[in-house]
């Protein structure tokens, strides 16, 4: 049988579950081994080890009132709860709690789309609403609005935005927390709070204006454990007339500097609206010894050495892809302007990869290759592992350091990560930058996890070295798997960790019994902090 949280007697644990069953109905409280197995982190880097983070039980309430009653019971027993929305954020910890023995508060049944406003281009949803759900609703109702989907699309809007997830369409919508407008939260006390204009019971502008009056508190509920978000508003994108997907290549390694300088200028001037990816076909090729040597050498490798290598591969060193949205005339002008600006890079090449006019038929939707850029949820990330030539991958962790979108930064960071891999006798990782958020670029690469402890120990060591080495270089991860949150928070250690102490101060004030998501982003309640010290 699943074990109760440390320090809690089985008698109290069972008594708390009995009380919760009275609130939520016994069929919605899950406490068998089989039940708890379903909440394991499928990609856990601690899979099968004693330290693997596992739940003791789960409860799936249907309403705010049930949640209020459950948190009041949890306070009585000091029972740790771990709220999840759809629980499928596998690379960052999935539905497994950070603190073993927590009871998962599974909000998937709360999956109503409460409102979609065509005129305000907004929606209001519950935590169980997935990107698939909202997209399907808009299609069925023929509402000409786009969502900005995470990839894969099985995530929930609320969970993804609270974890600072991002998507692929226009800049106003890609940063999912930035695109939210208004929240409803059940606090650890059981009290319900609405933020922004929603604090007026008669509000007509809850999803229109974010701030309301007084301090804007929404931010403290993201990547935190201060409350249970039960409703959230989001801004939606008006369906454009058309879209054009394009690809730009630049031949030389040093071209990354002007390439990103010009592309970011086009982003900041709103010529390019979409998410932008830049990859290196050369560096992501098979890791032959010369490539490994050049990548690990960093600044020690000359432009001439790189030029010789690149020439030998007969491929461009960089490929950027992005998308234009709008009226066809606007798209054509934007693309021409983009090409004019980039023409200063000798050897630059341009390619249109796909164009669309909207609305799309169901068959056309099915045929779209790059669905998330058109706000279409998919499971393509998994599908790419499914191709006849690809080796299916293990589970993985996302290593996601944030850098300024400059070529020099991309090169410097990948040199650091390449050296970490080399020091551990591993080939250098994938090189690519994603501009999801308004100003930052994520130089992401996946780190494999396994179902055996020996390989996972190496994975954890590698991941820890990546986090530390990149933070020393000035690049912190913006989001990280639950197993590494404590380490990552240490890298935000200015003034002897004053930010972390503020997080803890807030925790103690808002959730004095520490019942919510103990340990999430290394914010531990006082009684567990003292034990850990």
């Amino acid at each position: 049988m699943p074990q109760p949280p440390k320090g809690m007697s089985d008698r109290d644990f069972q008594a708390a579950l009995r009380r919760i069953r009275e609130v939520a109905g016994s069929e919605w409280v899950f406490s068998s081994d089989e039940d708890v197995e379903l909440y394991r982190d499928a990609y856990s880097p601690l899979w099968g080890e004693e330290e693997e983070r596992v739940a003791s039980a789960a409860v799936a309430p249907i309403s705010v009132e049930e949640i209020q009653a459950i948190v009041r019971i949890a306070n009585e027993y000091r029972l740790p709860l771990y709220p999840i929305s759809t629980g499928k954020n596998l690379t960052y910890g999935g539905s497994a709690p950070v603190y073993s023995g927590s009871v998962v508060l599974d909000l998937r049944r709360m999956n109503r789309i409460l409102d979609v406003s065509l005129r305000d281009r907004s929606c209001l949803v519950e935590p169980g609403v997935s990107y698939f759900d909202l997209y399907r609703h808009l299609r069925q109702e023929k509402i000409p609005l786009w969502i900005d989907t995470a990839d894969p699309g099985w995530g929930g809007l609320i969970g993804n935005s609270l974890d600072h997830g991002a998507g692929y369409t226009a800049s106003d919508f890609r940063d999912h927390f930035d695109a939210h407008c208004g929240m409803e939260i059940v606090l650890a006390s059981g009290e319900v709070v609405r933020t922004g204009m929603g604090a007026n019971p008669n509000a007509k502008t809850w999803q229109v204006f974010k701030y309301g009056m007084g301090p804007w508190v929404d931010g403290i509920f993201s990547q935190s454990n201060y409350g249970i978000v039960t409703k959230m508003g989001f801004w939606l994108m008006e369906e454009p007339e058309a879209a054009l997907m394009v690809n730009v290549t630049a031949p030389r390694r040093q071209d990354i500097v002007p390439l990103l300088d010009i592309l970011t200028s086009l982003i900041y001037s709103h010529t390019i609206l979409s998410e932008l990816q830049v990859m290196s076909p050369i560096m992501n090729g098979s890791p032959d010894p010369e490539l490994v040597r050049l990548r690990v050498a960093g600044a020690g490798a000359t432009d001439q050495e790189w030029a010789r290598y690149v020439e030998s591969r007969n491929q461009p060193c960089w490929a950027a892809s992005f998308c234009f949205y709008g009226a066809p005339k606007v798209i054509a002008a934007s693309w021409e302007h983009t090409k004019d600006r980039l023409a200063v890079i000798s050897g630059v090449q341009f390619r249109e990869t796909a164009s669309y006019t909207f609305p799309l038929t169901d068959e056309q939707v099915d045929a779209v290759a790059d669905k998330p850029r058109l706000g279409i949820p998919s499971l393509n990330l998994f599908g790419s592992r499914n191709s006849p030539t690809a080796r299916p991958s293990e589970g993985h962790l996302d290593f996601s350091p944030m850098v300024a979108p400059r070529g020099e930064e991309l090169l410097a960071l990948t040199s650091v990560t390449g050296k970490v891999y080399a020091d551990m006798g591993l080939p250098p990782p994938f090189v690519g930058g994603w501009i999801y958020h308004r100003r930052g670029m994520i130089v992401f690469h996946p780190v494999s996890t396994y179902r055996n402890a020996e390989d996972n120990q190496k994975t954890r060591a590698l991941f820890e070295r990546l986090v530390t080495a990149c933070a020393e270089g000035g690049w912190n991860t913006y989001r990280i798997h639950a197993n590494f949150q404590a380490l990552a928070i240490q890298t935000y250690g200015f003034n002897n960790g004053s930010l972390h102490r503020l997080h803890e101060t807030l925790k103690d004030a808002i959730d004095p019994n520490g019942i919510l998501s103990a340990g999430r982003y290394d914010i531990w309640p006082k009684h567990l902090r003292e034990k850990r010290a």
Partner: protein
Amino acid sequence: MPSRREFIQRGIAASVLAACPLTSRLALAGSSSGKTYRLFKVVFDQTFAEGAAFGAEAVSRGAPARAVGSNAGSVWMNEIEPRWKRGPAVIAGLTGRASLFCLELLARDYGMGVVYRAEHSPTGDGGIRHVITGPESLSEWQAESKTRLTAAGQCWSAVAARMVMNCPETLEPDPSIGLLDLAQPAGIAGPSLFSWVIAPAKRPGVLGERAKRG
């Protein structure tokens, strides 16, 4: 009236059958005794020749087959999840590892689980290894399935279609069948394909018909 896609698949099926040696044809001949699951959807990854042949066999036998390409996102969003929101319905298919992993994980939300999972892996010498996953109570049917798949040689995918379409209703999802491991096992020469059946489990899911507000 078959669609263009179905027509093409029937053509592929005909060519596969024509290419099958007699032993494989015999392997196709058997069927399960007793009541079999009624399939709401049979999905197949048409990016593999074996997937296309599986689909063609399923179509030729009147199954509601759907080609999914290399990922199951579209069929999930447009067909399977809307159906499961109304209540449980059995699905089967032949897909790659990742698609099945996604469907297994999503199925859990709706109280559905794996009844039958067969891994078909190239061995490097031109052969195919078939490994059946399932609880002990399946052993007779597993053995039958394995025998037929092995006897079918290169025509195994048509047999795999037959097997999933003849999966007996007496078989239920077993908790001992864990979520598919995304890692490819050592010692195989290329990506595995999986034939599978997902049916209602005893344990209801968090979503689905039962989860509706009273």
